[in-house]
């Protein structure tokens, strides 16, 4: 089979799920005739018609609220945010209405909110965000953030079949850069399980999304130049978090670097570090350290963006510090 990009994997997942279940439908801005800003829904209107591929007004709160209502009635809406940065416009609906629906009213809300996220693309402050941590703090939402085409397809299919609301982040830097031959057939990946992206024995990097690839690059360099064997754990799902996989890698290597692209303060790295502290403190030979973005809005100029965001060289330096500790 031919290799596909992460973007094509997303499109395949959408089409296959719409084909499989007539209750699945898509809503979002410019997703119909135009096929979406990144063409993730390209061809779906022609294939499934305008009742199942709905162009919405510029109303993130409006269509995410509407998705919740439709989901209560047994439909399975998939909302596209043109850029995930605009999820903040629907923060109220997602956190107060959607996330609480099952708990307070026994109302299922099987819906997916997906969209392109992340930086390294010169998108500036409003087309580069990684807002996952804001939602990690809201019980009732699930958060998925894949780094490979295969995981993107398999996890998106699982998200659409999940009986709760799943926020699905698609890193736009990876959209067309990463290619992979997908498993044949009805390929799903379970939500809530991490993946060992690279086996190692000296030190672990726990990460997700685009920084999985930077961590892999760093691991190769460290093996080549330092003879270090670095394990890379790709979390894939951030909520629920795979504690067992985190503890397993800590016990294996006893040294942990947490890497993510989001800002360091209040980022998910803090939560991962706290879990390691509570679940596996006595297995550590060094403090858990973080490599993440500096605490500023993401700037536009390449010189600025590259300085603010974590780079492969940062990961290499941090791993060397940890290995020497």
């Amino acid at each position, binding site marked *: 089979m031919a290799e596909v990009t992460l973007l094509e994997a997303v499109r395949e997942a959408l089409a296959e799920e719409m084909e499989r279940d007539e209750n699945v439908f898509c809503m979002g801005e410019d997703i119909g005739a135009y096929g979406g800003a990144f063409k993730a829904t390209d061809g779906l209107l022609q294939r499934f018609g305008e009742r199942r591929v709905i162009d*919405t007004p510029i109303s993130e*709160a*409006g269509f995410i609220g*509407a998705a919740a*209502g*439709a989901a*209560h009635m047994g439909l399975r809406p998939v909302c596209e945010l043109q850029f995930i940065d605009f999820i903040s416009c629907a923060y109220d*609906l997602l956190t107060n209405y959607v996330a609480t629906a099952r708990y307070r*009213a026994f109302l299922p809300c099987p819906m997916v909110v997906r969209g392109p996220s992340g930086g390294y693309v010169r998108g500036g402050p409003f087309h580069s965000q990684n807002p996952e941590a804001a939602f990690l703090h809201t019980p009732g939402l699930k958060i998925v953030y894949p780094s490979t085409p295969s995981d993107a397809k398999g996890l998106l299919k699982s998200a659409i079949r999940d009986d709760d609301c799943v926020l699905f982040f698609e890193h736009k830097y990876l959209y067309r850069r990463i290619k992979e031959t997908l498993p044949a057939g009805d390929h799903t990946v379970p939500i809530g399980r991490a993946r060992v992206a690279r086996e190692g024995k000296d030190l672990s990097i726990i990460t997700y999304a685009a920084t999985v690839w930077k961590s892999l690059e760093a691991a190769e360099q460290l093996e080549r130049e330092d003879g270090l064997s670095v394990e890379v754990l790709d979390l894939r799902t951030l909520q629920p978090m795979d504690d067992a996989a985190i503890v397993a890698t800590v016990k294996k290597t006893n040294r942990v670097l947490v890497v993510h692209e989001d800002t360091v303060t209040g980022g998910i790295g803090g939560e991962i570090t706290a879990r390691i502290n509570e679940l596996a403190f006595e297995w550590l030979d060094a403090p858990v350290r973080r490599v993440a973005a500096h605490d500023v809005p993401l700037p536009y100029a390449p010189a600025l963006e590259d300085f603010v965001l974590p780079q492969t060289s940062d990961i290499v330096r941090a791993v060397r510090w940890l290995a020497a500790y």
Partner: protein
Amino acid sequence: MAATAAVAPTTDIPAGLTRDQLLELYYWMRLTRTLEERLVNLYRQTKVVGGLFRSLGQEACAVGSAYALRREDVLSPLIRNLGSMLVKGATPLEVLRQYMAKGDSPTRGRELNIHFGDLEDRNFVGQISHLGDLVPVMAGITLSFRLRGEERVGLVYVGDGATSTGAFHEGINFAAVQHCPLVVIVENNGYAYSTPTARQCAAERLADKAAGYGIAGVRADGNDVLEAYRVTKEAVDRARRGGGVTLVELMTYRRKGHAEHDNQSYVPAGEIERWAAENDPIDRYIAALTGRYGVAASELEALDARVRAEVDAATDEAERSPFPEPTDGLGGVYADPPSAPVLWYRQGFARAVDRNERAQGWGTFNG
């Protein structure tokens, strides 16, 4: 109040209603008021453990509009819509258990007051406190009707205050564009907490907002239960025919504070008393029933007695209901996993404290 003997109706009954239905409307309004009066007693006895919200003076608005729906239609109530929920099948027992935080309340003690729903059978949605949010949600519920070709209608209430929110705008605009079978009722009761409508919106008539969305808009006397029914029925029928969204502004007046603790110091002197004396929806309806429609006062008194007996029985039963099991508070956030884990410091304990204290209030001004 005209207390005439039973005579033949002197006026045709409006809006296609039967005589029995006229009495039913009276029953729902009386049940709303009596149930709320009982809740006030229970609140003073500290058996209602949270805030108490009244709809005194707005019973016609709530009951008349909800009466225009069929059982399969979906209603989305707001905090002054106890009457609408009763019409849609909510029971006094559910409401009492809910206010008293009982374990067998519709939300098993998780939510307050009339924040509960039933989308399986009676078809009303549990509201949340964030005003306006149910407008987009109801846009989606009614979108599902249109997508599936079901002849069902949705009705969502907002107050004058919620018309200022972004969610109201986004929801109603979405529903209008998508031709959803939705009726949006603005209950204009003069105040959002302490803020008068004139400080909420510069438009003279909230119904005029309809023009901006390209939908029908109508304003009516919300303290006339038959008028509230009639205009809502027209809007519901339009929605069912595929005619899209209607914005209905029902004019009414909130005679109690935002919640029971609110002393209404911001209300001009005499205003509440004037509405109570001249424009009480139940008094007005009794006058119409016993006058124009020839209903005997004794028939209404019999309904009053029935309501009292029902509320008494429901109160007794609600008092006997147990409080929730503390650990139930961790369940049901997700379908999977079914429960949040008990944190390490609480493991092996069935409850957190020996005695659950009742708060004196929420810290809101109680003068």
